[in-house]
């Protein structure tokens, strides 16, 4: 076959070119970056294009319910020490977006690819990855994604027999269940604040026991594996027991966990933790998340939280009271159209903060906060909320499309 000498067949080259043309048209028409439409056109012309594009790369896949975009950035930054990297850094994480991203990086050595959790098994089959990072799994958009436990089951089936090194969070029982069908797993004790999707043993259905940081099933032998890497406060512990300091511009415990997983991935490709972690400092805002912007003379920090686990991690990183907090929730297609999940978020954690509420579903939030016994104000717009907010940097927490709306309005 000609594959070894000529990286892409004429058909694949044509598909890449057509995809780029479609993306350019889409950009010109003001319809976004064009990466998804470009990828769609290219995949239609050559359905195996994704696999072919990946053939010449060391591919690393990153999947999770939360933190996959940020972790993809952190890994891409770390692996830059070992060679050029191509990545779907904008979060277009389904096959079309991934194809488009890979088509843009003909000189790259590494492909660091964020994958939507529903597509992981298929993409892992198509691109023969060298490594797969699995961070966490929890309830998200249940009206369209289906059951979280079934998702773990699909990961498990899709990854059994994979030749990839799986870098998996030992503290999330669903992730451990999904990864433990693979022969080659590197366990990272990355933590997981949210526990409410794993009280029932994914193996036998027994009730899970969770003393301290440990967990095990009371009925079968399923238990937390011994990790070789760990997040310990502000340090990453490597398999030799050395502690490496984490210096990030990104806030919060969850991002330290993402850095720990990223360091473990980088080590698979020979990048030492010290080098990997130093490079991660370069990562600032990721697609606008964690960005601090000025709006109406005030500082606003923009935080994305899409589901109960994400809100929980976000509450733990915001400035303490009396910093004002602005919450915005929508329930459009990309958010999931059911707002019931708001009741799985413990809003009493916001006690003491002045709270302002906006977004399409501000009234759902209002009832939620009223029942939590909190004081809050419902506003029509972000402008109104910012005008009413007392002094201090405003922590803005929003779910997916609400976050996009906010970015457009506050201009970052």
């Amino acid at each position, binding site marked *: 076959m000609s594959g070894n000498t000529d990286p892409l067949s004429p058909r694949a080259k044509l598909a890449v070119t057509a995809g780029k043309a479609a993306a350019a048209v889409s950009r010109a028409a003001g319809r976004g970056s064009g990466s998804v439409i470009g990828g769609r056109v290219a995949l239609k012309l050559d359905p195996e294009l994704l696999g072919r594009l990946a053939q010449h790369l060391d591919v690393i896949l990153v999947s999770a319910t939360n933190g996959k975009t940020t972790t993809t950035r952190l890994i891409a930054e770390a692996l830059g020490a070992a060679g050029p990297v191509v990545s779907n850094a904008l979060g277009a994480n389904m096959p079309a977006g991934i194809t488009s991203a890979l088509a843009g990086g003909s000189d790259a050595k590494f492909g660091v690819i964020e994958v939507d959790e529903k597509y992981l098994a298929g993409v892992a089959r198509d691109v023969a990855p060298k490594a797969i990072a699995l961070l966490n799994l929890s309830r998200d958009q249940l009206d369209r994604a289906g*059951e*979280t436990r079934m998702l773990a089951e699909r990961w498990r089936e899709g990854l059994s027999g994979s030749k990839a090194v799986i870098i998996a969070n030992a503290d999330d029982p669903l992730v451990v269940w999904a990864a433990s069908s693979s022969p080659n797993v590197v366990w990272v004790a990355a933590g997981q604040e949210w526990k409410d999707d794993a*009280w029932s043993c994914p193996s036998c259905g027994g*009730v899970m026991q969770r003393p301290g940081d440990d967990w095990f099933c*009371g009925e079968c032998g399923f238990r937390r594996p011994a990790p070789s890497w760990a997040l310990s406060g502000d340090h990453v512990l490597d398999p030799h027991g050395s502690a490496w300091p984490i210096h990030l511009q990104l806030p919060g415990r969850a991002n330290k966990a993402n850095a720990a997983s990223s360091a473990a991935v980088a080590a698979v490709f020979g990048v030492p933790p010290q080098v990997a972690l130093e490079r991660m400092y370069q990562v600032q805002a990721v697609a606008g998340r964690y960005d601090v912007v000025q709006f109406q003379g005030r500082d606003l920090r923009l935080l994305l939280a899409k589901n109960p686990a994400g809100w929980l991690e976000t509450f733990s990183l915001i400035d303490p009271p009396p910093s004002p907090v602005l919450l915005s929730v929508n329930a459009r297609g990309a958010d999931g159209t059911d707002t019931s999940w*708001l009741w799985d978020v413990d809003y009493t954690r916001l006690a003491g903060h002045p709270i302002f509420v906006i977004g399409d579903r501000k009234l759902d939030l209002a009832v939620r906060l009223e029942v939590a016994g909190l004081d809050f104000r419902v506003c029509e717009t972000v402008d109104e909320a910012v005008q009413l907010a007392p002094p201090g940097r405003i922590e803005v927490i929003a779910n997916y499309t609400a976050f996009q709306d906010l970015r457009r309005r506050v201009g970052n």
Partner: protein
Amino acid sequence: MSDNSLRVVWVYPDLLSTYGDQGNVLVVERRARQRGLQVERYDVRSDQPVPTSGDIYLIGGGEDRPQRLAAERLRRDGGLNRAAGNGAIVFSVCAGYQILGHEFINDLGEREPGLGLLDVVSTRGEGARCVGDVLGDIDGPLGLPQLTGFENHQGITHLGPSARPLARVRLGQGNGTGDGTEGAYNDAVFGTYMHGPVLARNPQIADLLLKLALDVNALPPADDRWYEALRDERIAAATQPA
């Protein structure tokens, strides 16, 4: 109600708390406290016995395998049946609703016995999952305003002669039987497919549970401003073309 406090039991949050239905517990608790009641809340995991001395029992929705496990453990435990036999109020949602009936189809595709507290039998629909906003008229004798909620289920629930439909849908599927019924109830046991959570969308149902538990006809008024605003918005959204 014993002593001076209302005992609210949240059944099996480890298995049946996937769709935000713990909001129902929070709403009952809040509205009871606003009326000056003391509330003791018991969250009972599926490896613990269900206490029989509760006043109100709440059960939520869950995934298919946890639903089977919950039915097995509740049958073995017997506490919920004994409590209902003592006259306790039971309010259930989705997977929990199916468990209160005579039987449902479990994750293995087999008929799974329920607790028989409601005269209903559930099967699994062949067509598309029922997902979306629901609007309905609550059964007349209950004297409550319109039902609003969000459904997300594959189940179809058929009512027997001693169960009354909780509501008739104007929009959405409800029980999925095609006859427009949604949910079921008898004297003190209620079942519904509505999430939202349903008691946040319909605080009058929470008050009904409180009145039944306290054996009173009326409660002091509560501040319903935000509930009413949310209800108006959701009912308007359900009745307007998209």
